[in-house]
């Protein structure tokens, strides 16, 4: 009995490790997206690393989000890391087997006191399951980083990865 409680408590701790107060998370503006449809991701960066200014923003593009194009940003250098996909995706009749795996905005200076957004778009594969889809993101500053890569989905997660909730297309093929 005690052991069972202990297990339950451990599970609860695994899901919810409280930590240093978090003022705001890096999040995506549109909380929902349709499976098999295009999505404009607006990554909102509300603060720096502690009090330090953000110089670089890095977003991982996980498998299942293809045909990705980032929006260039004045004052920031844009870099794309491409690679092969695990699966092939149909993009309006063209089969895609490789594409963007990571987007890097660098050389900027986003003060802790300021707010900014980083934009990219792409398409969610039709084969994805409904539920949360995570875009792990990292802010890099002069003296450290803020890694928003916790994909556990826990409500009390310390530094959750930005996510969007995927819902099934209502009217058949979602174009």
């Amino acid at each position, binding site marked *: 009995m005690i052991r069972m409680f*202990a297990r339950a408590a451990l599970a609860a701790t695994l899901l919810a490790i409280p930590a240093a107060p978090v003022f705001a998370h890096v999040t995506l503006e549109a909380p929902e997206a349709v499976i098999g449809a295009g999505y404009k991701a607006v990554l909102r960066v509300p603060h720096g690393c502690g009090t330090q200014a953000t110089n670089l923003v890095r977003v991982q593009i996980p498998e299942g989000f293809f045909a990705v194009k980032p929006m260039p940003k004045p004052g920031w250098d844009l870099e794309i890391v491409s690679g092969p996909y695990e699966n092939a995706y149909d993009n309006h009749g063209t089969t895609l087997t490789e594409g963007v795996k990571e987007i890097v905005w660098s050389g900027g200076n986003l003060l802790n006191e300021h707010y900014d957004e980083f934009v990219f778009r792409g398409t969610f594969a039709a084969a994805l399951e409904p539920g949360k889809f995570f875009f792990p993101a990292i802010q890099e500053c002069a003296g450290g980083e803020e890694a928003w890569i916790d994909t*556990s989905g826990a409500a009390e997660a310390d530094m959750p990865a930005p996510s969007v909730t995927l819902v099934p297309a209502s009217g058949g093929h979602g174009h």
Partner: protein
Amino acid sequence: MLHRLARQCVLLLAFMALAAGQPAFAHAQLLSTQPVANAVLAQAPNELALLFNEPVSPLSLALVAPDGTATDLTAEAIGGENLRVSLPPDLGQGTHVLSWRVVSVDAHPVAGALVFSIGAAIGALPEIAIASPATALLLWAAKAVLFAGLFFGLGGAIFALVAPLPARGGGVIAGLAGLGLLAAPLSLGLHGADALGRDPGGIFAASTWSAGYSTSYGLTTLLLAAALALGLVSLVRFRLLALLAWPLAALALAISGHAGAAEPQWLTRSAVILHIGGILFWAGALLPLLFWLKSRSDDADRALAQFSRLVPLAIAPILVSGLVLGVVQLGPPGPAWLTPYGYILAAKLALLVLLFGLALWNRFRLTRPALGGEAKARLLLRRSILAEIGLVLVIFGLAAGWRFTPPPRAIALAQAAEAALAVPAYAHAMDDRVMADIVVTPGRAGPVAIDIAVVDLAGAPLVPLSVDLTLAAPALNIEPFKVPAIPAGGLWRVEGQSIPLPGLWELVLDIRLDRFTLARIGAEIQIP
């Protein structure tokens, strides 16, 4: 004569049976504490606990706050194997010290201090009162006088049961018994002062006496005083009273002290009674013989002949019981033998060999010619007996030194408890990508080092970017706290961390497998 011996045997057996009925105890050694020493606690505990290898009674306990003020907690302590002390509410932040002094059934006080901190380790460590060396020295001296009175005074009275006493020697023997009778209560007061860690002047306080009397040495002193008084009376009238005093004195020394406290108690207490009973006869005969041998008379010859005839009956129980006690007290061979207790025993054994050498020489080479009237033999015998008295006194002094040394069996027990706690504790955590083996060394509450080996599911080592460890104990009301691990020789290590309390702990690892991938795995670990 034989009738008398038979009666003595019956009496001895009766007392042995009485003594064997007592519960079994051994010299007290502190095994563990709760919280562990130097723990830093998030919240003030309600009580502290000290675990000993045998039941103890509190003598004095005080809690010293970070600002140096001391609170007497003696009334808040509950004795037993696990001594528990209720703490006052609203203990301030910082470092507190519980200064404790307890007594076990062998009547020997044990003292120490438990340091713990609330919130953070703040505040200078206060001075802890330690035992007064002057008190210990006086106690040793009082006991030496008491023992001299007992073995030469009462012992002389016991020898008078089987042989006439010399006229002048009788006065010396009575004087020694009287000195012992005075030293007995004095030693009790000094024992109380020693138990409480007070100066010799402490014997003027009533609390010192009640503390001394509350230990098992209290009853020992009462019985010894009674035995000495009986012996003193028997020297004047009612000679047979010495027959009652004899087992009484032996029993008195069996109910306190390490030897009578060791397991199995029916054996050790019986052995102590036989040991003391035999020594009382042997040592008690030395002074009368010394006086008798000054001049030749029928009475002197009768005393020497009686001694020569009966002393094997005393030596045999001394040897057998001494062997039994030595085996029990030393425990199995090991480093615990090389302690002051072992050194004292070695010295005592060496002197005993000398003493027995003299005794054998007396009995087989000197006694017959001395009884035959050879003046040279009588002179040698006198000198030899004088030397025996000297040796016996030194041996008593050594035996009294055991008062200050725990026997090897108790030391070995404490070391074994320490070693058992030093064994690492293990935990294994995994998910569908990564596994970790977590080793907490030592596997107990207190300062620990935690080593973490991170591998993939096939067991191949992984090279994560970072590993963070979160410790929590919800059952103990300890909130999670996160500490980074540092790479160390293929492992990840957390050093300088303290697991403040024993209990069930939850370990959660945040493993940064690569830039974007965080694995979080957890395990429980039981910290004893």
